[in-house]
């Protein structure tokens, strides 16, 4: 029964997408748990994007807080949520969800999203952010590199199609090469990130050798393996 409540599929980004088919968090949880238990090694600490496009108005009945808790509880990392109706966005944001840009060009306008620094993408290959990226903010630039001239806070998120440079402390999450560019890299002045990912291969800071913490560091991909090394 619960098998068709959720459907997980890999995307180009290699971040798993949880396609919600019911607003009932208990059911979703059950289905997700089954999926996870079928291949536990694959999903442990796996970043997860929630897609609500098949829910439509049923989204109104979704308890965003409970959903987030269930996902964390099952050992996934809720990266963000997308394709939710306007009316539900505030609720989702208050429950701590990052709003992701819808994949399909659906009619969800960008207003009402959390404090997102909107990139202008006309032909640009680099997005320069001059101010700190604060908790709850997200910088999304699928067309190239992101350069942050200051720090990024815990609870912030940077998603770039290319590489990411942070000329301050990197404390939030960073996903580079989100469309699968394995040559993308992450550079920062002070590594304190919660999560780093390149082309879907990610690591949590807890797993990172502590002698790298607080150091200028570079993150890159060698085969399937994420490498982190001091820069100087």
């Amino acid at each position, binding site marked *: 029964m619960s098998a068709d409540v959720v459907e997980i599929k890999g995307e180009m980004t290699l971040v798993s997408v949880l396609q919600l088919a019911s607003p009932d968090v208990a059911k979703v949880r059950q289905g997700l748990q089954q999926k996870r238990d079928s291949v536990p090694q694959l999903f442990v600490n796996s970043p997860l994007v929630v897609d609500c496009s098949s829910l439509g108005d049923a989204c109104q009945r979704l308890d965003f807080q409970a959903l987030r808790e269930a996902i964390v509880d099952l050992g996934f990392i809720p990266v963000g949520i997308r394709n939710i109706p306007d009316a539900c966005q505030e609720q989702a944001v*208050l429950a701590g969800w990052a709003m992701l840009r819808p994949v399909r060009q659906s009619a969800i306008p960008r207003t009402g999203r959390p404090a997102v*620094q909107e990139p202008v993408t006309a032909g640009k290959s680099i997005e320069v952010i001059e101010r700190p990226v*604060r*908790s709850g903010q997200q910088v999304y630039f699928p067309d190239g590199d992101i350069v942050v001239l200051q720090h990024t806070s815990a609870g912030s998120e940077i998603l770039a199609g290319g590489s990411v440079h942070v000329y301050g402390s990197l404390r939030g999450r960073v996903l580079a090469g989100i469309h699968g560019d394995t040559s993308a890299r992450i550079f920062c002045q002070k590594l304190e990130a919660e999560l780093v990912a390149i082309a879907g291969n990610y690591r949590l800071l807890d797993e990172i050798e502590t002698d790298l913490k607080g150091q200028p560091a570079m993150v890159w991909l060698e085969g399937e393996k994420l490498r982190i090394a001091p820069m100087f």
Partner: protein
Amino acid sequence: MSRIVVVTSGKGGVGKTTTSAAFATGLAMRGYKTAVIDFDVGLRNLDLIMGCERRVVYDFVNVINGEASLKQALIRDKHTENLHVLPASQTRDKDALTQEGVGRVMDGLRDDGFDFIVCDSPAGIERGAHMAMYFADDAVVVTNPEVSSVRDSDRILGLLQSKTQKAEQGGNVREHLLITRYSPTRVASGEMLGMEDILEILAVPLIGVVPESQSVLQASNSGTPVILDKTSDAGQAYDDFVRRFLGETVPHRFLEVEKKGFLKRLFG
């Protein structure tokens, strides 16, 4: 030209209302015509701290709804000349504040020649907080030396960058960090974050540090803004803060654990 200053924090109970009352009083004491507005619809508090709760007839929402004029609703402060309080409504729901309505009140105050308009924001990052910050030129972000408060202040700083009129017009709200309820003893023992840690995380110019102090509670119980208590450490710290806000260079105080004298050490 009026300068609109929002006092905000994200997290509740960190000292926004205490700060708004002290700040507005400090500005008025120096001769600036000042209004302080309570944006905490449903939970009004500022009038108690200012000691004018019994003189509330009309409130902010009445003015927005056109049920009273600004002149009728503004309460002249009994302690300080040049100071006026616009209380929140106790009964209405939060939707009573509209951007357009708040804008009209700001225009009205501007026309009345107010130099400063201090907006006491409610906690949270919802409508009330948005309304309080939307028209701001400056933001005093109030933070306690604990992780959750600092994190919430960080979120508020993000909203100031995106959800204000200044931001929409491509400008910036001026940011000032005020650390309150600072206890050097608890910082030294590692129970609380130190000032440097907070500055490192938030990267916002520090405008003041107000120590944890008994005098704050005494002041609010007696309905007298703590800045009027010239002998108290918190009152002095708030006075320093106002002077810095007005452009003076004033060294920070109350950051070190107070060295107790021999007798004090013996007898507590």
